[in-house]
């Protein structure tokens, strides 16, 4: 099996979209996971529900909401355009945003479980040894919740690679900008002689997803052995 330059373009674009989406989501997801795991404030249940919304909504609806919010005339999209001259519409950055939004609930879930599993009494022990709340977080809470951070990263990455519905309704299907692996496969399925392309890209998809799962297993294990927490 040889991959054509077009195939490579699709693969490069998909990886770029997934990596950028997940990297930018990481701090947001961790902050949300921490607040949901530890915070007691009014509106917490509502926040939880909003974070999980992309998981239960039809992806096409999520894409349409992004279109409304981030389109050039939308409240956020218009502001980004005026202030920074940034457009997300029909660009790979928009595809990355769609991937990020769809990956967010999975990442938050994995990280939250891991933060909830950290024994808070260990933080008390750290405080009584002279650590500030910030140092206790940095040296105890964060390292002990790393397995969940890794798991969330890999889940989010795999979810981003597979993102289809929200992406196609938000930023359409533009070669080199928004035609990621699943969208390219869908496009090829519509072509009378697209079977070869579908086969090649499907194999690539399986390989990437397997690779991500194996990498995550390895990372979590290594982390677990080091930390003795699993």
């Amino acid at each position, binding site marked *: 099996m040889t991959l054509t330059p077009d195939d490579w373009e699709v693969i490069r674009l998909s990886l770029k979209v997934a990596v950028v989406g997940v990297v930018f989501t990481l701090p947001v997801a961790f902050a949300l996971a921490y607040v949901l795991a530890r915070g007691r404030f009014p509106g917490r249940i509502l926040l939880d529900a909003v974070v999980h919304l992309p998981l239960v909504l039809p992806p096409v609806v999520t894409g349409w909401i992004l279109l409304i919010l981030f389109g050039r005339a939308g409240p956020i999209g218009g502001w980004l355009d005026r202030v920074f001259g940034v457009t997300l519409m029909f660009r790979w950055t928009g595809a990355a945003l769609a991937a990020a939004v769809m990956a967010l609930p999975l990442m938050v879930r994995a990280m939250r479980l891991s933060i909830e599993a950290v024994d808070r*009494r*260990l933080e*008390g*022990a*750290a*405080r*009584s*040894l*002279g*650590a*500030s709340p910030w140092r206790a977080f940095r*040296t*105890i809470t964060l*390292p*002990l919740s790393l397995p969940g951070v890794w798991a969330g990263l890999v889940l989010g990455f795999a979810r981003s690679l597979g993102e289809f519905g929200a992406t196609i309704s938000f930023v359409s299907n533009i070669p080199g900008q928004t035609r990621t692996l699943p969208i390219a496969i869908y496009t090829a399925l519509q072509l009378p002689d697209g079977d070869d392309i579908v086969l090649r890209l499907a194999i690539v998809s399986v390989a990437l997803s397997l690779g991500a799962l194996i990498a995550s297993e390895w990372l979590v294990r290594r982390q677990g052995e*080091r*930390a*003795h*927490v699993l």
Partner: protein
Amino acid sequence: MSFEVDVSKRLGEAEIAVSFESDAGVTALFGPSGSGKSSILNMIAGLLAPDRGRIAVGGRLLFGESVNLPPEARDAGYVFQDGRLFPHLRVRANLLYGASEREGAITLREVVDLLGLGALLNRWPRTLSGGEAQRVAIGRALLSNPRFLLLDEPLASLDRARADEILTMIERVRDALKLPILYVSHNRAEVDRLAGRVVAIHR
């Protein structure tokens, strides 16, 4: 006075109220399990806020009169019942977690010699026996250069031989470092052997 404590706290159904002053080297809080002894230590360490009252140790006000120092400012050496070592750090890093750079502070070498920790430094907490973990916990508390020690049933999970060994260590700490110690236990024999003053806690 080494310890001046007069606090009360409602925790669910239970009302914890205690008032004592002590100038002994080792003061024991003695009472049955469930009588709130650990909560009293947590209040002194700053991990649990009393509803009202006053706490001073060695003449230094920690709580009350609109003072409420955070735990990291109380200079307590707290040894928890379960050791509570950090599972992701080796013994050496656990010992040094709160280590003070201050002049005249006790050094890692001194603590290792005092408590016989030399062979344990590169081990993970998970691989330690109960007695070893408790010795490391005591060492970690000592290295944070505390002004006083809070020991919460440090012998509870140990067999007789181990318990006796740790008791000897605590006596050594008491006599070598002259730190005020508040010792929580439900075991009469331990309390009689160690403490100069016994405060009985009732349910």
